[in-house]
């Protein structure tokens, strides 16, 4: 038995070596990884790097977000730093091609990986976030980074957890010729920062609004998130930049996000009340109107994992 196993092990090692050589060759043929970031000007002084509406994959390197920057006369304001050190560095290089003004400040909207894992490239600049986001990254950042290495692989090379350095609160701040309103909310995560540029009317909504992309719920409280959407509805804006999905000059996607969250919460509650099991709920039908949301079934199933256990725990009566 032992000899046979040893022989198999040796053969496996030989095969593995062959495979590694083949993979290395393929990687070299494809050239170095690059996000090929190109800024789109969406308003005066305001640019966005538009990402995919998919999940984190080895093909997209985690570029599933809309990061942005505002070029004020006093310097550049950066909003989100992307999923990896490589993204942050490419982003900084792309900004440099638009302006040679210094970067004044970086804002991070929440603790999810694509918002801040590129922060190493901006380590010389104040990295501003809500206190809840800073605490969340301190607590969960290393696990979040580990999971990104697993999901997108080599794109993450050299990426280390860089915790935001400057707590910010609800306020209006002036940078050069731009007035930015910092809006602290909670719901999508425990600390969501929206940034409204009052000068241009552009709202960087972070994770509060998703547009034609299924909302994600790993840190969500649905009831609070719906209140966040009410807060967005009350704002006077000209352009809404969601972190995930399409940029629109109206609030269509505020309604779309609200519709999804309301359906999701109501459907799971009804299924639990009706005796359905969590495994069965993974396959529940989703109404046709949500077919416009990208990664619909995958994200729905993730939400079942996030939301079901708590609703179930609250609904089952004690019997001893």
């Amino acid at each position: 038995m032992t000899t046979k196993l040893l022989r198999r092990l040796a053969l496996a090692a030989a095969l593995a070596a062959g495979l590694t050589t083949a993979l290395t060759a393929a990687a070299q043929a494809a050239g170095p990884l690059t996000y090929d970031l190109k800024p789109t000007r969406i308003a005066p002084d305001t640019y966005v790097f538009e990402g995919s509406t998919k999940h984190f994959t080895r093909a997209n390197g985690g570029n599933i977000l809309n990061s942005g920057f505002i070029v004020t006369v006093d310097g550049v304001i950066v909003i989100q730093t992307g999923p990896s050190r490589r993204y942050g560095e490419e982003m900084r290089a792309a900004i440099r091609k638009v302006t040679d003004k210094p970067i004044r400040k970086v804002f991070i909207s929440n603790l999810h990986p694509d918002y801040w894992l590129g922060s190493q490239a901006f380590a010389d600049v104040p990295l501003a976030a809500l206190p809840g986001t800073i605490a969340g990254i301190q607590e969960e950042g290393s696990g979040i980074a580990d999971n990104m290495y697993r999901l997108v692989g080599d794109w993450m090379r050299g990426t280390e957890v860089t915790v935001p350095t400057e707590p910010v609160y609800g306020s209006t701040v002036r940078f050069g010729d731009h007035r930015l309103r910092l809006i602290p909310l909670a719901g999508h995560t425990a600390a969501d920062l929206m940034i409204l540029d009052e000068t241009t009317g552009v709202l960087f909504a972070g994770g509060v609004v998703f547009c034609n992309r299924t909302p994600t719920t790993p840190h969500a409280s649905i009831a609070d998130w719906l209140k966040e959407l009410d807060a967005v509805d009350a704002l006077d804006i000209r352009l809404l930049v969601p972190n995930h999905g399409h940029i629109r000059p109206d609030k269509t996607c505020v309604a779309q996000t609200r519709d999804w969250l309301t359906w999701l919460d109501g459907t799971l509650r009804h299924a639990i009340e009706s005796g359905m099991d969590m495994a069965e709920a993974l396959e529940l039908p989703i109404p046709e109107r949500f077919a416009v949301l990208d990664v619909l079934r995958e994200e729905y199933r993730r939400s079942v994992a996030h939301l079901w256990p708590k609703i179930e725990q609250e609904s089952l009566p004690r019997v001893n």
Partner: protein
Amino acid sequence: MLPIGRSCMRHALIGICFSAALLVSATPAFAAASPSDPLNSVMWEALREQYFAGAPVVFDDKVKVTAPASAEDTRAVPLSVDATALGQVVEMLAIADLNPFPLILRYHPGTAAPYIATRIKIQQATAVRGAARTADGVWHVSGVLVDAAGGGCSAPPVSYAQKDWADHVGEVQARLWPADADGVARLRLRIRHPNDTGLVDGIPAFFVETLTVQAQTPGGPSELARIDSLEPVSENPVYSLDLRPPPDAKALVLRGRDNQGGEIDAIIPMPPPGARPAMTLRPGDPLRSVGQ
């Protein structure tokens, strides 16, 4: 290390050996010697010997295993095994091939429908299987692959973060839905218990081992179903069972024991008048769906 640690090492070694076997099986000479596992799991040969030794095994889609393709929370992955398409079933198993403890539970459905759902811990991406033994002694096996970030078996239970967790161990929440036209009544239960694997250094294994559901009837108690559960069942275990309580049942009784001798005891009332049977999603359900 505790004996559990050694056992874990042994499984890891078997895993490495069978990884080697899997790579080799790509060559025709070895492929003929290995019965084909539809999931190509490196552990199948060892598990087959361990849990089904001497018994005939067939891969059979009549056993429907439901679990997500990707585990969002590796400490509580939903899993259901539905063998109702086989008719009468004597015993059921759930197995996660690459867990340090592959066997999740044994279910003795008794008079119940051969369906069980729960939540499990997953240590790494793995095949997850359901097996059902019919009266002729044949094991019918099916399964799915679950991708995972890992660590579900070796993460410390969240329970221990609460100072008073020990005061609440064994608390039961449960609800019984009325029987449907086939006499099948859905029971869901949740037990507060750390259900600790013992893989975290310095914390001994502490998990629910047995659960029995009886019906209280005028003629005395009668057993409806029994679960032998093991380390991979999630913290605060949750089960869905499809029971057949006798028409004269006054209540159900849940009795159980954990591996440190702690007892679980609860009386589950019959559903109130006017309640409706549980809703389930069976194959062929006409409901439409998008985003598959």
